């Protein structure tokens, strides 16, 4: 990292610490809250759950139908649920139709089944 990048990162870290300090002072959080939440949340975060849904749909046609009908309910059958997965809709590609799913306004992404989006998904390009 360049000297300039180091300085920028240090400034960002200072700003974050400042917000945390204000929240700790109010008793809203503790100093270790964010770290502990992230450790817990990241433990299971990633596209493996989404892969399980797809794989199940490939081998079980009735599950596939349920998944396309109500994604949230079908995912719950496999114990998959949670933040950014509350209203899941699944669409299927075919020989005639190729689906592309994207947030057209910000960077919304189905964290509960795919984890966090890659950097290019959030990029302006």
């Amino acid at each position, binding site marked *: 990292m360049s000297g300039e990048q180091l300085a920028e*990162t240090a400034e960002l870290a200072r700003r974050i610490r400042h917000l945390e300090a204000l929240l700790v002072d109010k008793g809203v959080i503790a100093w270790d809250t964010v770290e502990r939440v992230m450790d817990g949340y990241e433990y299971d975060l990633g596209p493996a759950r989404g892969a399980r849904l797809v794989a199940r749909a490939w081998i079980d046609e009735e599950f596939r139908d349920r998944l396309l009908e109500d994604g949230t309910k079908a995912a719950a059958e496999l114990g998959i649920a949670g933040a950014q997965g509350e*209203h899941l809709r699944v669409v299927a590609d075919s020989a005639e139709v190729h689906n592309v799913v994207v947030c057209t306004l910000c960077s919304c992404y189905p964290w509960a089944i795919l984890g966090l989006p890659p950097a290019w998904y959030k990029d302006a390009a």
Partner: protein
Amino acid sequence: MNSVADLGGSDGFGPVDTRADGENWHGDWERKVFGLDMVVETLGLIPTDAVRFGVESVPPKHYLLMAYYEKWLTSLEKMLPIWGVLDPAETVEETTIDERLSESERDALVEGVLAAIAAGAPKTRDVDVLPLFSVGDRVRARRIHPAGHHRMPRYVRGCVGTVQRVHGIFVLPDAVAHNMGEQPQPLYSVSFDLADLWSDRTDAVGALNLDLYETYLEAP
């Protein structure tokens, strides 16, 4: 608002660079920002919609150059005082901050936040509202220019599409973001022909399906 963040259809940003390094975070600070945002939203201190509005209202000249998670941080800095969580004038000497919470309170807090994340927070509401439109109806995206948070991209204003699905009754982000209640209403998937949307700019065949709230739509 007519935010610079509403980039759909804009030229000049170049090709998408899909070389993924597989990393969620490029610096511990990014992980901290994400976590802080997650904690603050999960505790119900600021709604997600308000954080989004905070991002959208970053001035254009900064927005286009700012790193992604710095926009989240900037939004939190702005929104925490606006939502009454922090006092705008407050500064704090970090060295003097003691923990206010006991060890058991700290444990309960972490457990509570993780449990809430695992449970999710549905945006549907069980209210008796009759949808104005049905599957197959032609609808026009209204030419409205709200000053606040809004979830219809500018490029679709005035276009006519076809209702594909009635998703259900959902809270309205435009209202939640500005502490104006939930205003639950029908949310539709509306299909717009690519030829209608982009006409001379594409030879693509197909449709764009947008999730649009009833208040964004009118009969053509």
